[in-house]
């Protein structure tokens, strides 16, 4: 940084206004990103009857955990109504359980079967390998809505509507993205260990499960997290195939909860307690695996 002037006094470093402005804007953007989450928590912790007082208070009004108890069904229905909720029990525990079951089914199935296929595409030669892979990739471009109705019709004709299997099946055996994602990683790992094992007479599945999979745990776990979050967040598909309470997942349950307006308006404190619960698993995963998720964004950005 060389000042163009000769005098000693003016050689003081100029105030970097540009940089200050940029930092200020960045901080503002971060605040706008985070504030809604604070407001969610603030509302969830506000006593239901106190919601209408102090609508602009940045802190919870009459801080309480009653809303969480309410949506988890830990207080009686009459008490709930008295607090401004609906008479119907809001069974979030059940919805949480359903979301966990569904996400686990999809993650375990999709990751296992996609990893098997990805390994075959990356390492083994068999007839029509490249053609099959190309068709998988082409399917990446097809928008979800095109598959929605035919898949609904299929699941319905298999009598699997309102079952976990029916919701999970279309994503349980593969997604084109998962196969593509893992194949890239398998192509990138060293073959020497695998080859040594094969020469020693080990068969393909032994090599795959005992040599390759342990080496690709980071990639596999990244895919598992991405798949978990996608399944957890999914709304339209479970809405269409599994709307009954026994299999209703969190997103669908939140949608139902939203349309109940017990006293002319939605039950905001209850809803915000529900949304807070709904995002806790994602937050936990993100704290554990944040870096991997960020790296995978770069990876998919350059495919």
């Amino acid at each position: 940084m060389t000042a163009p002037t000769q005098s000693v006094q003016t050689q003081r470093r100029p105030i970097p206004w540009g940089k200050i402005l940029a930092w200020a804007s960045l901080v503002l953007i971060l605040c706008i990103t985070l504030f809604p989450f604070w407001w969610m928590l603030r509302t969830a912790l506000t006593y239901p009857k106190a919601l209408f007082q102090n609508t602009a208070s940045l802190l919870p009004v009459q801080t309480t955990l009653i809303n969480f108890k309410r949506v988890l069904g830990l207080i009686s229905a009459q008490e709930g109504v008295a607090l401004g909720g609906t008479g119907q029990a809001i069974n979030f525990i059940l919805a949480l359980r359903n979301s966990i079951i569904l996400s686990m089914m999809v993650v375990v199935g999709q990751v296992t079967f996609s990893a098997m296929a990805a390994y075959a595409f990356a390492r083994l030669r068999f007839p029509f390998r490249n053609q099959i892979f190309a068709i998988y990739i082409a399917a990446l471009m097809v928008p979800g809505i095109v598959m929605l109705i035919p898949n609904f019709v299929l699941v319905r004709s298999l009598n699997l509507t309102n079952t976990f299997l029916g919701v999970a099946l279309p994503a349980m055996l593969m997604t084109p993205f998962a196969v593509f994602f893992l194949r890239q990683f398998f192509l990138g790992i060293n073959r020497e260990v695998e080859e040594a094992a094969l020469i020693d007479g080990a068969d393909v599945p032994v090599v795959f499960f005992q040599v390759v999979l342990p080496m690709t745990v980071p990639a596999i776990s990244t895919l598992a997290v991405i798949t978990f979050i996608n399944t957890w967040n999914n709304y339209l598909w479970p809405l269409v195939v599994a709307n009954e309470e026994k299999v209703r997942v969190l997103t669908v349950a939140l949608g139902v909860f939203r349309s109940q307006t017990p006293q002319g308006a939605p039950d905001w404190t209850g809803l915000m307690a529900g949304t807070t619960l709904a995002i806790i698993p994602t937050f936990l995963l993100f704290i554990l695996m944040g870096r991997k998720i960020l790296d995978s964004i770069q990876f998919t950005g350059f495919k």
Partner: protein
Amino acid sequence: MSVQSSSIPKLALQAGSTRRWRTRETVWGLILILPSLIGFIAFYAVPAIRGVVISFTDWDLLTPAKAVGLANYMHLLKDPNFWRALKVTAYYVLLNIPLQTILAMVIAVMMSRLTKSLVIRSILIIPWLMPSVVVGLLWLWLMDPNIGILNAAIRALGGPTVPFLNLPDLAMPSIALINIWQYVGYTALLIFAGLQSIPGSVYEAASIDGASELQMFWKVTVPLLRPVLVFVAVTSVIGSFQIFDTIAITTKGGPVNATKVLNWYIYEQAFTRFNMGYATAISMVLFLLLIFVSMAQMRLMRAGESDV
């Protein structure tokens, strides 16, 4: 995408059992892809074909489907609701994409100058990881006309109550705002990753040649970033055309059809009116439209490359 040929046979050759290895390779290859292939055929390939077939029928799920030829597509051409949905969707895409992309670009450029902080990048990505249902509910509450915090803030500044999602003219811009909030950080990080891959030496060379900041941005950054920008533009437009969750949670197509986008119209036709054939026909048209728009975008953006 080059598919490398396996090098394992070479070694197997040394072991002296090439043919046996080849067979084993084929057998295991087919076994390993079998589950995925079943999944692909059952839930991608066959449904895609079946979708085309359904779109040529009149079918309410209860009675057998009747073949009606092109009737659904002909009806679509004259259906004012379809055209309105198309217009509403296009309006949404235009509200959403330019602002989101520009904002993301600004954030990415700022970050590339200021920081690579993992914490900041993590914060920016959080909204994108959340279910759209949660994001929709959260903003429905923030934007509530009576006791929402946004209106409390506007009133505190002396403004009038803004019925964000309840006024036909404001509903779609409000939805666009919600989705920009959800996706801008993710888009910024994609662009940021692209910026990181531009070597610093390019900028040094440009500054030695006396290029100004602005010139460097337009003559160095933008052209080198083009592949990433094409990816961002194409994928975000495709995503934007398919908006559903946010609208299903907040406005349900209202007020007065102001937010009845194509996906909502398809959903409504299929699952509340059980016009399976017609709904599928609309989804096919949306698919063709997306192919067309993506190709147009790629052509336009590649055309720009020649003058660099």
